[in-house]
């Protein structure tokens, strides 16, 4: 097969490298893009042990059954989205394509669906001592533990955009917690602008992954 043309990330347009160079000191907020992750939409019956077993088998991670939870296995993370819906996130779109095939094969004959949605979302990584305050500007979720903490995820409204929030790490060393914001691709630039605006109060550092 011929080599694919170069893909373009959702935030490529913003020239994050230039923004990273302009970062000030003592920033309370850090922002970065995690581009080109692989993503699958997984649908099925959580109460069917065959389904959970097949997913475990193919993805190498437990099926998160508790609302708002996630699970890890190797490079694969599963996020609970709804009682019959999960988001499978892995390292790259080619990995997602392979995973899609193995999941589809494992789920053959079940009422289930696997859809490659790798390009559909931008992922913005938000950190820093004021990261929580930045989220609280636009989201009315309760971000204090135990309501939200490392490993938890939530689909919710951030400003005027519906997003999936994932707390990657708790604030362990006083450097602040770490969040991933999964935002529908077409809204990504708009959301980024908003996050920059809100962060101005705390000082912002942009980094390139």
């Amino acid at each position, binding site marked *: 097969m011929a080599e694919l043309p170069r893909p373009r990330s959702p935030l490529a347009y913003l020239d994050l490298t230039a923004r990273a160079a302009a970062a000030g000191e003592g920033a309370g907020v850090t922002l970065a893009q995690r581009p080109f992750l692989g993503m699958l939409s997984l649908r099925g019956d959580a109460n069917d042990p065959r389904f959970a077993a097949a997913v475990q088998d193919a993805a190498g991670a437990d099926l998160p059954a508790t609302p708002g939870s996630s699970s890890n296995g190797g490079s694969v993370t599963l996020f609970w989205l709804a009682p019959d819906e999960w988001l499978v996130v892995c390292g790259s779109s080619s990995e997602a394509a392979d995973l899609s095939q193995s999941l589809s094969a494992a789920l053959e004959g079940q009422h289930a669906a696997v859809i490659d949605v790798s390009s559909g979302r931008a992922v913005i990584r938000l950190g820093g001592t004021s990261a929580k305050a930045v989220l609280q500007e636009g989201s009315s979720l309760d971000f204090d533990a135990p309501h939200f903490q490392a490993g938890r995820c939530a689909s919710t409204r951030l400003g005027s955009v519906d997003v999936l929030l994932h707390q990657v790490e708790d604030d362990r060393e006083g450097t602040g917690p770490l969040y991933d914001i999964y935002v529908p691709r*077409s809204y990504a630039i708009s959301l980024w602008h908003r996050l920059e605006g809100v962060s101005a*109060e705390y000082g912002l550092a942009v980094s390139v992954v």
Partner: protein
Amino acid sequence: MRQRNRVAEAGLDIDRERIVRFDFDGNRYEGHAGDTLASALLANGVSVVGRSLKYHRPRGVVALGGEEPNALVRVGLGDRAVPNLKATEVPLLDGLVAESQNRWPSLGFDVGAAAGLVSRFIPAGFYYKTFMGPPWGWATWERHIRRMAGLGRAPEGRDPDRYAKRHIHCEVLVAGGGPAGLVAALAAARTGVRVVLADENAAFGGGLLQVPAEIDGKRARAWVADIVGKLERLGNVTLLPRSTVTGYYDHELLTVAERITDGVAAPDPRLPRERHWMIRARQVVLATGAIERPQVFAGNDLPRVMLTRAIRGYLHRFGVLCGRSVVLCTTDDTAYQAAVELRRAGAAVVGIVDSRDPPGEEALALARSEKIPVFAAHIPTFAHGRRRVRGLEASRLKADGREVSGLVERFACDLVGMSGGWSPAVHLFSQTGGKLRYARRLAAFVPGETRGANRSAGACTGEFDLRSCLWQGFEAGAAAASDAGAAAVSTGRADESAPDDVISDAADAPPVPWAAPSRGRKQRFVDFQNDVTADDIELAAREGYRSVEHLKRYTTLGMGTDQGRLANMHGLALLSEAVSVPIPSVGTTTFRPPYAPVTIGALAAGKVGESGRPVRQTAVHDWHEGRGGVSADWGYWKRPRCYPVEGESEADATFREVRAARSGVALTDLGSRTRIELHGIDASVLLDRLFMNDWPELPVGRARYGVMLREDGMIFDHGVAARLGRDRFLLSTAGPAETLLEHVTFLLEAVWPELRVFVTDVTESWFVAGLLGPNVPEMLAELCDDAAAPGEALVMSISEAQVAGIPARVLRSEIFGEPVTEIHVATDFAMALWSGMVTAGGPWGLEACGTAAMDVIRIERGRFALGAEADGRTTPADLGLASMVSHGKDFVGRRSLRLPAFQEAERLQLVGLMAASGGDRIPGGAQMVAADNGGRPQPALGHLTSHCTSPLLGRDIGLALVRAGRSHVGERLYASSPLVGETTPVTVVEPASLYGQGEPTNG
């Protein structure tokens, strides 16, 4: 003389070492750090700080804080100016510039004061009466009234400041940081739950800061500092000073307006000016305190007739003695301690006028020991003076305590204190729908049965004894924490101490009578801010406004920035007397948020510009921008309307793009079209019920166009369904994805839960490039590796291919009756595909084509668009699609199509329109009419829905919804727009026949 009213005593809030210079109405003054604008003006002997709304009477500072009705000022310069600030709440900063409002040309000489001379012509309900008068009445008066009345002047430019918002959660929110609130917060916080304590003042302590008091042998201020320190150290408490709790909404959502940079010297430039907090609490403790009431008598609005608590507060906090010769009028014990303090600060207390007979024993004893004369069973009846009070008359009450006898005491004085009892601040409690109870003992409303998870504590319950307030606060805080799920039990004592023994401000006797008798034409003001007098209320009652809600609207009592905090109780008591209905039956007006004015900036925080209206971009948006694509909004999406090149008009660009679609290749960005996937064994059944057209089994790889209805028979959406696999379909539609998803999900979950289908929105995962034009097959053959180039495939089919080296789905279908090839690729490769096509398309005459060109193609084909023709009120028959409707199956909306209303001949029907000649322009937004009668009114037959200039027909064409439209085919109608003053003759044709009227331009 500088700061002539500043005395050496007290003044705990100010730093006498630090001089602050400020400017009021163009005059320079000096004050001290820690002053408010009001205290500094009083210190400088400035009596008149504003003019009243209706009569332009000179007014001075009355109160100490947010209840101030008179001292409204505009602070700051230019676009940063804020009108309607209360001088009592403006911290004094070096260089502050403020001006009074509502006066012209100056405070000292105000032309509008003439209104005072004609005040009997501006009675209650003035606005209503002028409205009701001759038709020209309002139009004539409005201009003058607008200039004379009104509060403040808004800045004109864009607000240069940033405003922020924050949503937080807590277990216990305490509104009000006075003694009860402080103790409540501490009790709740010690259980470990999250607590928020908000207070409108810069410092916590509430009433404890205003007057000398002791708790546990400590000065009140030390006690407050001690509690605040404890709260700070606990770590689970969010302390919000300078933060007014403005609203209490459903399910314990409270809004708090925090002032951050205003009133702060040299604030951090990164900080927002204000932050609007949205706080979701599990439990709420309302410790909002009480507000002292004025008394109603002739001349009670003169400058230096003030609330007694305010007089005490200015002395204690700022070292300002508001007068040298004082009369204190009271209905309870409030005045006595004040008298002692004023006397010690150097003022002569000429007398205490007490309506009670006899006054409280303790109080009398105190007065006697200080040799202050007390006039029991007296009420103030007349204050006189011009620009400030010079004297007071008080009359002795008869034995019934209601009417005055002829006995009058006359005092010469330069300061009058009023204390007409205390009104608990029940506003937030009342906002939740909680019921108020009338407490006869206090002559005030107190919280009754609550609705919502809140409790009231302290003075806002009508409890004015400090020890009791502390206990109430402690119990409320601990109980709130426990109800909010706190595991621990609060420790510590209620008061952390024993309260002091100062005479409390408790009011045990109702302030009867509510108003002194009238005295000639002298006005007795009830509501200072709105210039409502006791006579106005009596007049309104006589005119039949017996309900307190009607009274409020008729007289404007209790409106404005102070929302009648001082006036409401007197207003409804006087109404009660006038209509002979007991006060509890008169009731109160409904309290609604906000409790205090909130800046528009704070309300709009996070909703300005892109934050409020996010922009959705397709993955090649920057290419559009780079090519001068003129952006158009479609929902949140930005789509290019057309791509004018240098020197080209939008119309010319659109023509060029349409020509490419007819003679070469038109490339259009369909990235914003909705795409959802359906998975499951019942997907086919679902589609059958979703679409109104016949839906025989679709083979894998084939596609079909269909129209969807709402259950009421109106067209909802339309698009193409393609079968990707046995149980897998792709649905590509014109309407917004959110709405379609919501609709389909509803059908699957609430209507037909037995159907096994998964619906997934994949709009964002795929980018779609649309290709139209005769050269598309050849161009694609070149771009695709596969032998079976999609150009060869059947129309209405879907297949997989490599396009420009990218794995793609190729959907061949029709758009507006023209064949279209859609290339679907993963969005990451959108730009690669797009540039690949632009490069490859050169030889084939490829042009990027915007929405305007697509619209031209659609209108020429007479096809409907969502929103324009399918406007939510049109059925398939209305749009000429009756023949598409299936007769053999049930589908959403089917039954409605048979309803008699939809068979009526007079319904609006879709028709095509052609301008009579090439030079005639069909005006946008036109109504369809039968004649050109020079723009005079005539009945509309319908309206224009879409129009364009057609390159095919060489003239303007359009689509319209016209009553019984199909019966007008062949006739001449007129498209008339009164807005632009144009009327254009048009010929009515069948929509589908428009295309046939033209000569194909590409031979």
